[in-house]
């Protein structure tokens, strides 16, 4: 019971610290989205009903890995140990971030989508030379949301795993990644085999199968990234 209380208290405290850290991250995301949409309306005489959703996905795909690179660094992990925490909790909180941040980002882009639609309708009612294309249906929206989500989670998970290893074992990880990249560039057979593997993984007859495959890759990334953090010392 005592152990459960300690664990719960520590987890609350850790999540609170990440909530505080990610307030500014979310502010940057909102800033990017606002900037993209305002510039689109200000500079273009046409708009698409999916531009804010696309902008949300692209921003998320770039920002989430950057966040993962930062939170797995030694200096950031060290600061989390200012208050009681164990390594399992640290990994769990990172997984929660990888799973929750894309939802928040995508829901925010949906909010921007509503604003964009409203702004387009208003512009259409007052401007004669403004074109607005509406290409989203309910089904395509739901599939798009689910696929965008799992793509962001998968990229976030892989980045988290790679940098969890990199910061703990810089030389070994650099050698492995460097060798892999060189082989990809200079060895044709290796490159072809790798592309075949990618094609095999990502070729899917349905979005559902692709979702499952990406989920499996994410789970493997979580398991692989857990190992170096579990063993690390706080120096």
């Amino acid at each position, binding site marked *: 019971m*005592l*152990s459960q*209380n*300690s*664990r719960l*208290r*520590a987890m*609350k*405290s850790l999540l*609170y*610290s990440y909530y*505080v*850290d990610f307030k*500014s991250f979310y502010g940057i995301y909102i800033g990017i989205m606002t900037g993209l949409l305002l510039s689109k309306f200000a500079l273009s005489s046409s708009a698409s009903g999916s531009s804010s959703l696309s902008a949300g996905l692209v921003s998320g795909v770039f920002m989430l890995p950057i966040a993962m690179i930062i939170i797995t660094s030694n200096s*950031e992990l*060290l*600061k989390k*140990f*200012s*208050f*009681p*925490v*164990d*390594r*399992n*909790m640290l990994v769990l909180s990172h997984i929660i971030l990888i799973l929750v941040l894309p939802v928040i980002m995508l829901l925010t882009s949906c909010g921007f989508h509503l604003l964009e639609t409203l702004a387009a309708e208003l512009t259409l009612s007052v401007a004669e030379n403004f074109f607005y294309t509406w290409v989203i249906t309910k089904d395509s929206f739901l599939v798009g949301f689910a696929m965008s989500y799992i793509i962001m989670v998968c990229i976030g998970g892989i980045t988290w795993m790679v940098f969890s290893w990199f910061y703990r074992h810089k030389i070994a990880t650099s050698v492995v990644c460097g060798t892999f990249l060189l082989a990809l560039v200079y060895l044709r057979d290796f490159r072809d085999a790798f592309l075949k593997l990618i094609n095999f993984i990502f070729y899917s007859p349905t979005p559902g199968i692709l979702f499952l495959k990406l989920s499996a890759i994410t789970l493997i990334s979580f398991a692989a990234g857990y190992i170096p953090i*579990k063993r690390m*010392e*706080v*120096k």
Partner: protein
Amino acid sequence: MNAVILQNLVKRFGKKNALDNISLELPENCIVGLIGRNGAGKTTLLKTLAGYLRPTEGRVTVLGQQPFDNIRVLSDIVFMDDERYNDSAVLWDLVDQAALSYSRFDKVTALKLLDYFNIPVKSKIKKLSKGMKTLFSLVIALLSRSPLTMLDEPTIGLDAAHRKEFSSLLLKDYTNHPRTIIVSSHLISELEGLMEQAVLIDQGKLIFNKAIEDVQNYALYLSGHRRVLEELEGRHSIIYKESMGEMLVLGVVNSLSEEELRELESSGVEISAMSVQDVCVNLTATNKGGVLDVIAK
């Protein structure tokens, strides 16, 4: 019950032994001074107790359990180190986080103390001076009231007035809420009035773990004619020796009998107690002579 038990603790970084076969026991509800020169292994020892580092060999028991990656123990430990907080963190958020983390944290008193020290809780850590950062970390660490409170160089950056207030605060809080407090510091003279037990380490090795009264009586300075004092060298353990012509000053481990002391006094030898600081300095002195010898060469 002991708050800390170390059995043959070794911590190795590469080929270097940062902690070398340390065995000691620290009782509950006691202020312990952890003393040692720069690089002696004080911080490594504290980090091992705080569960940051895994022992290479030996066993560490803190509050009855091993601390590495053990949240049950870690939630009862606070390790104060002012470099550890995120620079962009707002103080208010850190106070809130401390209240979430430590079940015994006294938030009301913490805020009162921060106000007293003129530390603005709405500012960010990076906006604080070195001294203010230290004070903030001290307030969080002391008011967490953790059963094992570890303060690593807690007076660095503090002015004389704040150092005095820190001592008063620590003693008062300890009296009201007894617990094991380990304070590591170079300022031994300031710690002397606080600590009940002193642990001296040097080059990763334990030199002694004694009650402060025992350290205060550990050694004597004998100052007198070389002819009288040189006789003692074979019979007693000498930890300090300085020649000035025919005069000699010896630091002797206090194993002299009443009779020997009387004889020395009657031979014109001046006897004085060796301060705790001098005991620590003399016991950890290198064999390289003094820094003035280097300049003289």
